[in-house]
């Protein structure tokens, strides 16, 4: 009885994981289709597409995403394109320029939505269906090590500032000091990356990475609590 109970729990857990991955794959597909539609559809069908994108925006905002970046991109693109259309073709073609910018924004919104709704490790798992196992591992490792890398950079920057390097925000106003930033921060970071990649490769290979035909994927327990 205990064995059947455990099997049932494992089956439920497995189906939950499969559902999460399938949802992420569907989201990725939806994003690709919607982005392509923004460029391919005729102008009169852009309004329904905008409605669909509006739903994605509402969903993204409900998931506490910030739309400010997309809005800024749209405003900059709108100002450059409309001024060029005004100079080259006159006022009567301004609407055409606005449609072009609308298409670019409609192609951008689905990507923004995906980044808010899909967890990076799920995207990594979906990508592993298309990428070789080694590269899927590299992408997942790089994503998970990003906070560690950010800490390393911050630490190196602070230590170099204490040593008297001219890389404080005030000193960097002078372009003469920009090269110092490269030699004092980027160069030690590259050395750290070389060391880290060596350590990780040894750690992974000592755990028989790349030997199994069907590799397994980690599912964080916190996903279920979200």
């Amino acid at each position, binding site marked *: 009885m205990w064995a059947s109970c455990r099997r049932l729990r494992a089956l439920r857990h497995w189906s939950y994981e499969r559902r999460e991955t399938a949802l992420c794959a569907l989201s990725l597909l939806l*994003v*690709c289709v919607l*982005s392509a539609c*923004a*460029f391919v559809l005729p102008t009169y069908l852009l309004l329904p597409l905008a409605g669909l994108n509006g739903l994605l925006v509402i969903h993204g905002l409900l998931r506490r995403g910030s739309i400010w*970046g997309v809005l800024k*991109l749209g405003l900059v693109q709108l100002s*450059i*394109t409309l001024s*060029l*259309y005004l100079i*080259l073709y006159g006022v009567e*073609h301004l609407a*055409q*320029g606005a449609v*072009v*910018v609308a*298409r*670019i924004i409609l*192609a*951008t919104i*689905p*990507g*923004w939505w*995906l*980044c*808010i709704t*899909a967890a*990076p490790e799920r*995207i*990594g798992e979906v990508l592993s269906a298309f990428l070789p196992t*080694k*590269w899927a591992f*590299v*992408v997942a*490792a*790089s*994503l998970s*090590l*990003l906070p560690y*890398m*950010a800490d390393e950079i911050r630490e190196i920057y602070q230590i170099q500032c204490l040593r008297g390097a001219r890389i404080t925000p005030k000193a960097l106003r002078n372009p003469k000091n920009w*090269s110092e930033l*490269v*030699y004092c921060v*980027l*160069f030690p970071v*590259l*050395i750290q*990356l*070389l060391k*880290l*990649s*060596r350590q*990780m*490769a040894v750690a*992974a*290979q000592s755990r028989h*990475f*790349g030997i199994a035909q069907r590799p397994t994927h980690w599912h964080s327990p916190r996903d279920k609590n979200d």
Partner: protein
Amino acid sequence: MTKKIPLSLQDSLFVGFCATLLVALTGMLRLKLGLSGHSMFLMSFFYLICYGVLGRFGSMTACGVIAGIVAMALGVGKGGPMILLKFALPAIAMDLVALLLPLSMNLHWRCVILGIAGCIAWAGKVALTNVLAGMALDVVLIQWGLSVLKGGFFATLGAWLVPPVLTRLKAHDLLHRDKF
């Protein structure tokens, strides 16, 4: 440059870390500067570091594709699947041009040429998006030219910094190559 295709796990991880760092720094700089074309500085720097450290055909392309995937996952460029092209196209162009350049050429000039080749491809992606969106050809060409000018300046700056960094890495015995 040797033409062995498979990279070791260590080299692949280094490429992946460089790509992630590139994406993270690009996102940070965008917040601070708000300048168009500045991403070419970091792109040419990191791609050429991969070219110099690994010295293999395809290392820059691998870095570009991974940077695109990471940017898509992190939502840095707000471009969805198109962001993949933004990072991958310059890398592919740089790898192809690297095949044509003679190894006897000065490393500084090689890096600058590769940086500019990457910048032209990067601007090409912007032009391609605009053409697909139905923008007039004159406007597309002007925007492409402006992108090449702005991106080319930053790409040259990034490329110029690579040879001294590679020399220092070699001096610290971190590279296994005798000649760049």
